[in-house]
Every structure is written in structure tokens, then in C-alpha cells.
């Protein structure tokens, strides 16, 4: 366990280092912050002054060293646009995103796993077909179309739900629905597959031969094995939710979160915000990966930490 954690942390450090380096250079090579900071009309002298003022005059390598030193000291600097510490800005945004993504993950779990198991057990029933068709359609609808549709139906026409912000529980309904739909659909499909795999296993026959009622056979013997398979997929999905995130949903529902922050920062070349944001998101993703590995080892006695194959 200790060795595993040390190894994982070392790998994480290397991965993060590579990521921040790439982001550092790619953002700088591909655009200029000054045009955004100064507005779109700058004469040459003002431009030069601003470049000095924002510390963008040194050559990139010097800036890079400064950035690395700052990172090690935990000093991530100020946003070029907002002039506030990037950590403050990030913290402001992280809450809403976590709420949104967390709720979406919960909803996904609660709906998709039972539905997937049902679709597998009653493989040929009409109910299962309905579930799978629903999953197909859920998967195939772009989430911003779904988001806009929900907005129009429930806020614009029916005036039932609030359309913007994250004040109350009601504010969660639409964004969470729009966000989790794709994931629910995908997870249903994975769960169904995993369950079908398990249903063919001999130990289920053993369980039945013991005289266990069908419910117990499914809940105790099948589900546990299904969950193990689903876990790794689920870990991937959580990381996708955290990293690829909810940019689109956040925009449509005016939900100030990380996705919106990162894209905006990238467009404006607000380097400090972008660098810290990417670092934070990447760390979260990697930590989730490690946690998935640990969870995997916890639920599957055959797996030793660090020896996992996939």
C-alpha cells in the first residue's frame, strides 16, 4: 500500500509537471494576453508598457522558471484580468462545479446502475428494450440541445423552474438532468454489459443451486461482481465529468463553475488562472484515478494494489 501510494504520487508529480509545462508553453505560443487586457485598441507604446507591467517581457524560459518556483512555493500569482489571487478565484468557482458534478454523479449512479442491471436481467422484455432505447437517445442528444430544451420547456413555457444560477435546490434540477443524461445513458450500457457477463458465470448457478431466492442471487452474488467492472468505467466517467466538465451546461444555466473559468481564461490567455486551473483539475483527476484503483483493490479481493492490469 505504502509503495503503491509512493509510486502513484511520484507518477502524479511527473504527469502534472508535463501537463503544466505543455500548458505553459502552448498558451503562450498560441496567443497574447495583452490584447485582452488592454482592450482591442492599443497603440504600440501602451502595448510595450503593459507587457512590462504584466511581467510578460522576460523571455519565456525565465517566466517558466519563475512559474515553477512559484508553484513549489505555493504562490500562483494574480489573475491578469481580475488582479485577484488565482486561488481565490478558483475557490469561488470550485464550489458550484463540485455541487453540480457531485449531484450529477449521484443521480447517475442511482438511476443508471439499477436500470442497467434490470436491462440485463430482463434482456428480452419490453421494459428492457425501452430502457436501452432511452439510453441510446440520451446518449445521442447533444447536451446543450437537451439543456436548451429543458430551459425552454420548464422555464420559458411552463415557468416551473428557475433558469439561471445556483441558489436553491430547484436550480439544480435542469443542469443536473442535462449533465447526467449522457452519463446515465453510458453507464446503463456499461452496467448492462457487465451484468450480462456476470450472469453467464458458474457461481451464479451455484448460488441458485443453494436454494437462494432470485433476489438474493442478483443482489448478493451478481451485483457485487458487476459493480467491480462498472467501478473502473465509473472512475473514468467521474474524471471526464471533472475535467471535460460542464462548460456547456454552465454557460446555458449561468452556473459559474470551473469549466466556464478555464475556457474563458484560455480564450483571454489569463495565464495564471489557466495554469492553476489546469493544475488543480489535473490533480483532482489523477487523485480520482488513484482512489478508483484503491477502491478497486478494496472490493475485489483478487486485485493487489499496483498490480492492476487495466
Amino acid at each position: 500500500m505504502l509503495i503503491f501510494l509512493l509510486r502513484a504520487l511520484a507518477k502524479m508529480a511527473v504527469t502534472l509537471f508535463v501537463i503544466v509545462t505543455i500548458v505553459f508553453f502552448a498558451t503562450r505560443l498560441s496567443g497574447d494576453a495583452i490584447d485582452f487586457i488592454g482592450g482591442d485598441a492599443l497603440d504600440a507604446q501602451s502595448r510595450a508598457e503593459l507587457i512590462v507591467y504584466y511581467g510578460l517581457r522576460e523571455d519565456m524560459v525565465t517566466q517558466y522558471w519563475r512559474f515553477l518556483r512559484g508553484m513549489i512555493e505555493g504562490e500562483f500569482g494574480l489573475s491578469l484580468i481580475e488582479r485577484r489571487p488565482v486561488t481565490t478565484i478558483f475557490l469561488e468557482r470550485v464550489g458550484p462545479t463540485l455541487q453540480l458534478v457531485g449531484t450529477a454523479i449521484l443521480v447517475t449512479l442511482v438511476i443508471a446502475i439499477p436500470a442497467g442491471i434490470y436491462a440485463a436481467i430482463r434482456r428480452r422484455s419490453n421494459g428492457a428494450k425501452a430502457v436501452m432505447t432511452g439510453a441510446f437517445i440520451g446518449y445521442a442528444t447533444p447536451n446543450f440541445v437537451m439543456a436548451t430544451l429543458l430551459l425552454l420547456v420548464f422555464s420559458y413555457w411552463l415557468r416551473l423552474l428557475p433558469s439561471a444560477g445556483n441558489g436553491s435546490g430547484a436550480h439544480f434540477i435542469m443542469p443536473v438532468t442535462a449533465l447526467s443524461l449522457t452519463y446515465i445513458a453510458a453507464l446503463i450500457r456499461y452496467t448492462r454489459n457487465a451484468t450480462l457477463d456476470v450472469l453467464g458465470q458458474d457461481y451464479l448457478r451455484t448460488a441458485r443451486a443453494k436454494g437462494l431466492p432470485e433476489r438474493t442471487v442478483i443482489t448478493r452474488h451478481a451485483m457485487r461482481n458487476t459493480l467491480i467492472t462498472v467501478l473502473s468505467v465509473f472512475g473514468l466517467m467521474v474524471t471526464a465529468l471533472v475535467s471535460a466538465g460542464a462548460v456547456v451546461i454552465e454557460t446555458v444555466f449561468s452556473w459559474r463553475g470551473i469549466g466556464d473559468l478555464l475556457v474563458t481564461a484560455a480564450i483571454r490567455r489569463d495565464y495564471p488562472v489557466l495554469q492553476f486551473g489546469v493544475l488543480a483539475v489535473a490533480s483532482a483527476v489523477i487523485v480520482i484515478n488513484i482512489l478508483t484503483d484503491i477502491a478497486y483493490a478494496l472490493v475485489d479481493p483478487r486485485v493487489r494494489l499496483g498490480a492492476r492490469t487495466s
Partner: protein
Amino acid sequence: QELRVGAQNVSNYLDPGEDHSNVGSQFYYNAFDTLIARDHAGDGGFVPGLATEWEQISPQVIEFTIREDVVFHDGTPMTAHDVVFSLNRMFSPTYPPYMVRKRDRLGNFTRAELRPDGKVRVYTAQPEPLFETLLSMQQTMIVPQAYLMGLAGHPQADEIAAYEAFGLAPVGTGPYRIAEFIPGERIVYERHAEFWGEPAPYERVIVTRIPETVSRVTALRSGEVDIITNIAPDQIELIESDPAFKTEGSVTPLFHVMIMNANHPEIADPRIRQALSLAIDRDLLNEALWLGMAEVPSSHTMEEFGDLYMPELETFRHDPEEARRLLEEAGYDGAEITYDIHSPSYYTNDLLAAQAIMEMWDAVGINGVINPRESWTGCSSEMMTRTWSNPMYFADPFGSFGVMWAPGGPSESCERFNTDAAYAETWERFRFSEDTATRREAYAELMDRIAADPPVLPLYRPFEAWGMRAEIDWAPAATHIPYVLDFRAGRISENES
């Protein structure tokens, strides 16, 4: 009483001196005052603001009598010291973002000075015909010296950190104080009880960012907000179809323009640029994309320029025949001409206009290609043509055309526009002559020059609309710079109907 506003965008900082963005201009007027104000409820004429009276002592000096009993939002009284400080921070800036504003509009001002009698004098380098106009600008709004300088911890030192901090915790003298500011997300105004003028009509005004048009319209309809900004003509019907809501709009004192890089080898020949311009049927664009509500100018001029409004000039026109002829004459070889556009869409209808323009170019044989960019092309020498906007920063051709096309200004220093001694000479006459007729004459000459070697084509003045509950009586004032959300007394009310 409370007013909730759904805005497409909220600024990332609030410093009237530094800011000149369309996003920012929405928010200052409610919370800050200038020495000279304008009668926005009326004809827009100059009226006393924080100065009760002013007197032009010489062409280069003006003297202000400062209003007493003015209290800043932080409770401290405003003094002449604050006025001198506010103006000098712009006239001889140490904070780089101010330097930009100094250069593009306040270049002629040298200093402000406190007289022993408590009056304040402002000096310029050359005779200044636009004293009142420039000193009623957003950039010359008055801020509290002690508060601002104290923000960095050393109240005596002129520190950059203090200016930076002020942008996040702004304090002014206006009818509303900024009670809460979350950059890019929310501004909460509260009534400033000790405001020197007529008290604010609302106890609170909450501005929230709702970036998506559909979401904004929805928020209005579902009662989450009372007013929404940035409604394109296409959406007006959507709001007005319900009698509980209405829209108010006007053409904005701002041009959507196409600029052309005079130094790009492919279009260096002025005839090609003329053709690019002549090929565009701006009336059709207006008719189709703005439902005829926008305004297509014949020259770089607007009614707001007052004495310098010159609709008789015909600098820009639509003539595809002529365009074809010029292209042939210039020996245009069908080279690809890129049209940069900010993506995702930045100006209302910009992408649509761009696509329509490509078709119009195609019709005269120009091989145009849209080039969506996620960042501004800045001063890139590869830029050929692109979208831009040219707002009226203050009501004078200098505040619109002049900010961008002055000799040594942003366009020239980015090397996409060339001036010569003759242009500079004409410019001096236009800028500093105290005689309006001379200025008009000079401006006409500049326009001729622009027509002959065009760096820009003003497409139209867009029509901007705001949606709101039907009971709210508010409309944009024609005398403001673009996008100002003016919720001062007399400008907004609610009728119980």
C-alpha cells in the same frame, strides 16, 4: 424596492479610469460622478456635476468650483483634493493601464491644480476645444484619494497595488454604492443615502451575468430578473409576444466596422480595399439581419457628434460595378482574402454579417474566407480584414473616429494604417481648432483621405434592445455612450398598471 438585471456580461474589475470596454461602460454611471454632467433626461447638454460651476479662463485653462456636501460611499466627504488626485492620476499616470487612456484621449491634459481659494484648475498643452466633453467622460470620474491610496497599506505612497485593489472594491459619489462585486458575475448596487442629488429610485439593483441569450430571455419570462440586456432584433418578437413584457431599444452610438490592413501585400493596393468596401451592400445587411432597425452611415459620423455631425459626406457606398472595375484595374488575381472574426461570437450578428459579406464579395469576384479566431488578431501583420467595433467614447468625432485613426494611434502603431505629414496636419486642425467650421472642414478632408485609401468601413450602428417587464419605464438615453445602464432618478420608474 429592488431591481434585478440579467446582463450578458459583467466586468472583471470596476475602475472608471482604466476601463473603456462596452461591458464596463454599463456599470459606472450609477456609482460615479464627473465634474461636468450631462442632462441625460433632457437634451444631453452639460450641467453641473461634482462641480457647481466652471469657467474657461484661457484656451488652455479651465477652473472648477467644487460642490460641497458630497459624500463618498465610504462615508468620507469629497474634497477638492480628491478631485485633483482623480484627475492627475489620469493626466500623469503611473499605473500603466491609465497610460493607455491618457494617450488615446487625454493626451492634451497636463495637470489639475488646487487653487488657494479651493477651486480646481485644469491645464492643457494646446488650446482645448473639447474641455467639457472630455471632463464629462467616464475616465474622469472622481474617486476618493484617501480610500484608494490606503488600499495598498501605505496611504502616502502612490502605489500600483492600490489602483489594482480599487478595481475590486470601487467607491464613488454616485446615487448607488457598490455593495457587492463578484468579478465577472455579480454587482449589487445599494442606494447611497447621502447622495448629493436626487436619491436613487431603487433600494437595491442586482446585476447578474446570464451569458446565453435564450437563458436571459427565459430568466425574464420566469420572473427571475426585471431587465435583460443585449437583445438582438431577432429576439424582440419573442419578448413582445407576451404583453407582460416589452423591449426598449435604440441604435447605439457605436459602429460595427470592418477594418483592412493597408500594409498587407495582397491588399496594399488601395483600389482593392476600396473594392472590398464597395462590394458590401450594407443596407441589405441592415434589412436582413437587423430587420431594418440598425442605421447605415454614409460617412464615419453620428448624430451624437452634434455640430460635427456631417451626414452630407459620402465616404462609403455600395457599388458592385465599381468594385469589379477597381479589382480589374488593380489586377486582383483571386488571392484569398481572410476575414477574421472573433469566435465564439463577440458582436451581435457578427458571424452572420461575415458570412453575408463573403457572399457579397464572391459576387464581385473576391475570394473571401472567414477565419474564426478565439483570440484577437491584435497587431498581427498577417491580418487582412477583420471585424471590430468603433464606439463613441465621447460625443465627438475625436471620441469615435479619432480614438482609433489618430496619427500614431493604435491603428497606425499596429502598422495596418499609414499616415503622412498631410494627414497629421489635417488632424491637428480637426483636433485642436476652436472654430467648429474649421474642424468640420478638416474632418471632411480626413474622410476624403479615408475614402481614397480605406482602412475601415463602418458597417452600421447596431440596434440594441433591452427586454423588461412592461411596468418598467426605462429606455436607453441617446446622450450616453453605448450600453450604459442608467438607473438614476428621473431615468427609470415603474408605473403601477
